[in-house]
């Protein structure tokens, strides 16, 4: 085993871990006597530096990734969508760290930042992993961090309650996932994604198709939990409501990017089974590289599972969000809905890079928007002590900038042009229809668009409070400087990326070209 090579591949993760340790040392060692805001600032800044360092060492990774010694099996990929997702994870982590500076939910800022960085390292592994075991390690690393982060507001009962719920659901779904993985291994005799996909086309796998279905449903349950797809979404609302705002922002953004990057890896592996083989071998298997038309193997069954998940998530998420009176829960159910849209893109995955790019674009911009939304929510919560709809009444009078950013972010989530959320949806649905221009794909896209019309209603409920209704209390809300800069940055990014979609799209496509 070549440890030098392994070290080079995991350089970004290493950078994050070192930063996590440094934060602990500095915070618990040198800054023990300092004021809380100084410690929070120092810890968050060190964390951001760690993310920057991880970005800086990324180009030093070897091309192609880390191979299992003696075989052509990739354990951790580098470059391509994995790299784009990793950069997105690091950037979003840095943004959520900045949210900590103005927060007051904990005194243990060093531990908080260290946990965020370690969880982010898990996210990086997930985004790059190409092997079931590595995937599972990454998922656990991320999830364990998230459970603790959810419970981090020690004085809040809601925080502890939501963390316990999250943990119990998470443990259960990890068990499902592992169970599904074990069946996949049993059918194909490998833990490498590509080998599994290939193995599923072998004649002996065809006789085991009921087992394959069990495995796929189990895996869908496990990953559906991570991406908050219905019907595995029961934790989402409680966690988003109970967790401290910066932690909730992390869960809503980074964890989602990592999980969807994993789903992209699975989809890509399912498509590119025969890429390494010569045409003769493909012919021998009677395989035409359009798995959409065949009922053999992984792809067709996976598509059906994802279609169901996507449709249920869009319906449940949007319809449940209509009835919410807490803005955090509203964002949570809208997250379920957005997961549904993205799963639609995964269900109709393209052979070329089109779908992967569209999904990455969607999930990265969605993550960015959600971090901003949680930043706004946390400011409002600190001023009013509540995240109810009424707490947002008359926001335009109390803080015009906050209201304006909220307007931009929520309209973007609702998919109103020229904001980035609209382009993300358009691009994703166009990619879906590019794979299959009619039939089930068209029906589901129509459902998705109809459901985003529904979503405008609940987003407008918040906007109505912010702009139309009179405030109960007219005292202005002061924006702390860091949050102010962060919100202005996110708001401008949402507008600019929406007006010039090629910017981010070209950037993502550049990664694919380099693969």
């Amino acid at each position: 085993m070549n440890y030098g090579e392994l070290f080079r591949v995991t350089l970004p993760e290493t950078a994050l871990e070192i930063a996590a340790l440094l934060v602990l040392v500095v915070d618990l060692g040198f800054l023990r006597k300092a004021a809380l805001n100084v410690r929070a600032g120092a810890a968050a800044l060190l964390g951001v530096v760690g993310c920057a360092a991880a970005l800086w060492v990324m180009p030093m990774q070897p091309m192609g990734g880390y191979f299992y010694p003696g075989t052509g099996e990739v354990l951790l990929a580098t470059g391509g969508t994995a790299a784009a997702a990793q950069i997105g994870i690091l950037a979003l982590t840095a943004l959520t760290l900045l949210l900590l500076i103005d927060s007051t939910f904990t005194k243990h800022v060093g531990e908080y930042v260290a946990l965020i960085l370690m969880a982010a390292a898990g996210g990086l592994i997930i985004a790059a992993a190409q092997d079931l075991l590595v995937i599972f390690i990454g998922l656990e690393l991320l999830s364990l961090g998230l459970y603790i982060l959810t419970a981090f507001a020690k004085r809040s009962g809601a925080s502890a309650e939501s963390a316990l719920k999250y943990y119990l659901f998470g443990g259960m779904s990890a068990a499902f996932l592992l169970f599904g993985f074990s069946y996949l291994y049993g059918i194909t005799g490998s833990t490498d994604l590509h080998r599994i996909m290939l193995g599923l086309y072998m004649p002996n796998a065809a006789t085991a198709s009921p087992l394959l279905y069990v495995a796929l449903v189990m895996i869908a349950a496990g990953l559906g939990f991570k991406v908050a797809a219905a019907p595995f979404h029961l934790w989402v609302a409680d966690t988003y409501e109970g967790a401290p705002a910066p932690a909730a922002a992390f869960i809503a953004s980074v964890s989602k990017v990592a999980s969807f990057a994993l789903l992209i890896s699975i989809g890509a592996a399912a498509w590119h089974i025969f890429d390494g083989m010569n045409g003769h071998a493909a012919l021998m298997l009677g395989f035409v590289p359009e798995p959409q038309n065949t009922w053999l193997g992984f792809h067709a069954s996976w598509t059906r599972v994802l279609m169901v998940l996507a449709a249920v998530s869009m319906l449940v998420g949007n319809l449940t969000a209509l009835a919410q009176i807490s803005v955090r829960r509203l964002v949570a159910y809208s997250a379920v809905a957005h997961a549904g849209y993205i799963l639609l893109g995964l269900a109709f995955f393209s052979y070329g890079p089109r779908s992967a790019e569209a999904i990455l674009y969607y999930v990265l911009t969605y993550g960015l928007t959600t971090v901003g939304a949680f930043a706004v929510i946390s400011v409002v919560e600190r001023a009013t002590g509540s995240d109810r709809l009424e707490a947002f009444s008359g926001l335009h009078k109390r803080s015009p900038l906050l209201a304006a950013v909220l307007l931009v972010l929520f309209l973007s989530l609702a998919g109103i042009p020229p904001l980035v959320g609209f382009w993300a949806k358009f691009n994703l649905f166009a990619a879906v229809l590019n794979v299959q221009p009619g039939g089930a794909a068209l029906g589901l896209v129509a459902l998705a668009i109809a459901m985003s019309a529904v979503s405008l209603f609940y987003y407008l409920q918040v906007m109505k409070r912010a702009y139309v209704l009179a405030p109960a209390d007219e005292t202005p809300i002061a924006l702390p400087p860091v949050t102010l800069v962060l919100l202005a940055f996110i708001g401008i990014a949402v507008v600019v990326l929406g007006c010039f979609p090629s910017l981010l799209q070209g950037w993502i496509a550049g990664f694919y070209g380099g693969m």
Partner: protein
Amino acid sequence: MLAWTIYLSFAGALVEALLPKNRPALARWFALVVAVAGLALALLSFAAGATNHFQRSVIVDVPWVSGMGIHYLLAADGISLVVVLLTGLAAVAGVLFSWNIDLRTNEFFAFFLALIGGVYGVFLSYDLFLLFVFYEIAIVPKYFLIAIWGSTRREYGAMKLALYSFVGSAMVLIGLLAAYASSGGHSTGLVELAHAGLPASEQMWLFPLVFTGFAILAGMWPFHTWAPTGHVAAPTAASMLLAGVVMKLGAYGCLRVAISLFPRGLDPWGWSFLGIGSWRDVFAVLAVIGIVYGALVALAQTDFKFVIGYSSVSHMGFVLLGLVTLNQIGMTGAVLQMFSHGVIAGLLFAIVGRIVYERTHTRQLAELETMHLSKRLPFASWAFVLAGMASMGLPGFSGFVAELQVLVGSWVAKPAWTVTAGVGIVVGVAYTWRALQKAFFSDATPSAHVHEHGHELAAITWPEVAGTVLLFGATLAVGLYPRLLLDAIEPAVKTLLAGGVR
């Protein structure tokens, strides 16, 4: 040059949002300057188009999302120039009739100008994606204009309007994505999509989907219910814009997108039921129902503004009927009716919502009856008499030329449509007359109750006079010399009928 109408409006909206809060006069004058600049640009471009025989001219063409064939493509033909001119008129008149807005003045004009910018954008887009973007941009400001500055049940009316619009635009988006995908995903340009040769079977479902999506905003029966509630709830300027230009967005979309891109969708099905044998018949029947139904309901209203709201549904029925006649005269009439109704409905809403309501604080016809407004507000009374005559379609006003053309066109297509729509015109005379009589010229004895409130009504201000004169001049000019606009509309319709967009 014409593209600056869009940029100026959006820039104006941004500046308005940043203006200091306690300077309403500044916000008003600034909005007026921006709106007048837009109108001036529209007029200049119209004049420039006239020298060019109203050929389609490309204004801007820049690749926007290169990998997907989406262009930032603005172009204008005769139809676009006419509706842009209407938008300019409505914008200036809207600002003039909002001169009395004191609550959050700068925000009001910010939303107002953003809406105007979106409307200009739709009328000038020649790329379906771009058109859709502008179309949706126009939805959000409408919501806030009504919800913040509106009156009767404003939050309900605003939300209903926003959701109807968004459902309509969702249908359009599905159509856009499906057409884009099945044409190979090379381009979203209107010209390219029209020439993509979409299979007839596909056009057969795309046409009704997209047409309905746009027609919701044009107030097509039975999807018109947002219109009366929205118009009534909206502040005067927003009602003027809603009836004046936003409903035209829908009609324009039906023409520019649904009919131009999916012409085969209008073909006969090959079987017929009760004389309905194609989507064209279906929509014509819905349009005719809208004409008669809107007029009949307007006849029974007790709220003055609801009368005008339902009359809009009736008049927009003429536009939709004209569009589906699919002949030169009918479609020309439809476009002319868009302009005519935009101006006249704006005028009516201005008189009812601003001049009368702001002074009497009631819109109930029963209460207005006792106020002797013809003596106390002679300006409003005579303005309404003239506007009412224009609305009824009396010769000399733009409505006459437009509705006559639509009726002739529909007679050519199917005489039964004309006969039924004619009933609508007769009822139209009745409801206008009834409202006019009750609101202004009633000689009901004033009750003691009114004597208590018999204070002097505030004098008419200059912005009201200016706005009235502007809109009235427009309808009279077109009514007396319709060639002014017909020269622009006819070639564009001819090209369209000769084989879609070119």
